């Protein structure tokens, strides 16, 4: 069924249009919205787009980097300053999907997709939302928990921590179809250390709940301890706590719960998967 397509130059205008139309969906790269349209989703009456160049911006100068919501994964991969995010970007789709899919759109991807969001969650991501109220920032965890209620606001960008060292951030996607495929489990860990002890660990998991979630029990197991085999074992043992995976064609919920600790142990130990 035809829909009305509205293209705006300014993100603020697109946000206004989005907030005033309950049957509107914002189209970034198209990998989610067009799929729904192709499947005949009649709940979409209006498609809203924005050509605002601020949505394409990358500011990698500071300790926190900012990525516009419209930045594609191919752009991320072309940006040397974002090298720590390259494994996450490279794990998504094939080249065609990476030429289309956007950082902002990935926030809305349901499991077993949304791998880039897992990395952002581990890196203390903050989502910038434009609504009728103006622009406001929201921690990514809060955003993900209320994602379905954010329909009237437009994501304009995301910021995240730049890891202090290459070893401080680790990412791995477990997939059955290699080199690309949906996620069995996706793991990301930010492990800052001070005085030989882990301080402020953040571990994020994908495909272990409807959205990316933090493995808070595993984080607690590492916090304040030397980053050694004992701490890693404790974190691995706690990895499944608080998770709520579902069955799909790639893996059962049971399997995901069984193996998440194994993969977390391998990630933290620096072993190959």
């Amino acid at each position: 069924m035809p829909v009305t397509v509205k293209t705006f130059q300014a993100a603020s205008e697109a946000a206004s249009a989005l907030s005033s139309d309950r049957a509107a969906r914002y189209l970034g790269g198209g990998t989610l919205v067009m799929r729904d349209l192709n499947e005949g989703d009649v709940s979409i009456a209006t498609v809203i787009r924005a050509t605002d160049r601020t949505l394409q911006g990358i500011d990698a100068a500071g300790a926190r980097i900012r990525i516009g919501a419209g930045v594609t994964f191919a752009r991320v991969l072309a940006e040397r300053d974002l090298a720590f995010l390259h494994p996450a970007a490279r794990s998504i789709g094939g080249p065609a999907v990476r030429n289309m899919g956007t950082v902002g759109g990935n926030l809305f991807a349901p499991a077993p997709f949304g791998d880039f969001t897992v990395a952002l969650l581990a890196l203390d991501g903050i989502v910038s939302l434009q609504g009728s109220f103006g622009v406001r920032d929201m921690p990514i965890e809060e955003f993900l928990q209320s994602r379905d209620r954010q329909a009237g606001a437009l994501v304009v960008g995301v910021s995240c921590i730049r890891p202090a060292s290459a070893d401080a951030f680790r990412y791995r996607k477990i997939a059955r179809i290699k080199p690309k495929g949906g996620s069995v489990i996706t793991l990301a860990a930010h492990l800052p250390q001070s005085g030989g002890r882990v301080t402020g660990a953040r571990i994020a998991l994908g495909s272990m709940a409807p959205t990316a979630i933090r493995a808070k029990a595993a984080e607690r197991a590492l916090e304040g301890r030397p980053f050694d085999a004992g701490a890693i074992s404790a974190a691995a043992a706690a990895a499944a706590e608080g998770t709520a995976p579902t069955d799909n064609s790639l893996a059962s919920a049971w399997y995901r719960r069984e193996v998440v600790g194994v993969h977390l142990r391998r990630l933290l130990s620096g072993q190959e998967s």
Partner: protein
Amino acid sequence: MAKTPLQFRHNGRDVALFVDGGTNLLVVLREMIGDLTPKFGCGQGGCGACTVLIDGDAHLSCLTLAEAVEGRAVETLDGIKSGPNLHPLQRAFAEGFAAQCGYCTPGMLMAAKALLDKIPQPSREQVVEAISGNICRCTGYEPIINAVLAAAASLRASA
């Protein structure tokens, strides 16, 4: 519902038409222009059969909103051969038995062309990466990978 005017370049020729809102590029190419080389596979971006080049980069036409190609250059398999001569990629696929049912072949060829246009001498790993979004249910991929490498060598030899 009002139709939207749309202009873009299709294989080097200007195209102007009107589309219904929400129409995807694959429908425009196949049903409105009559270019049947991009195939409809899954309609979800999962198989790569509909891969085309937009301004030189591989895109999935089934997930591309038609309005998004306004003023841009779209290249399909129909446009890659030169007159009566097959493109070296097409020739390599034929000579290397890199197609069986053939349904994935147009998408594979366009994904491979996007690679060779940017990287004339790709490694095997780069070829695997380039076609990683394209599903083939027949060949087991090895003949396809070998054909892309053979085409790359052929293109370099003729450059």
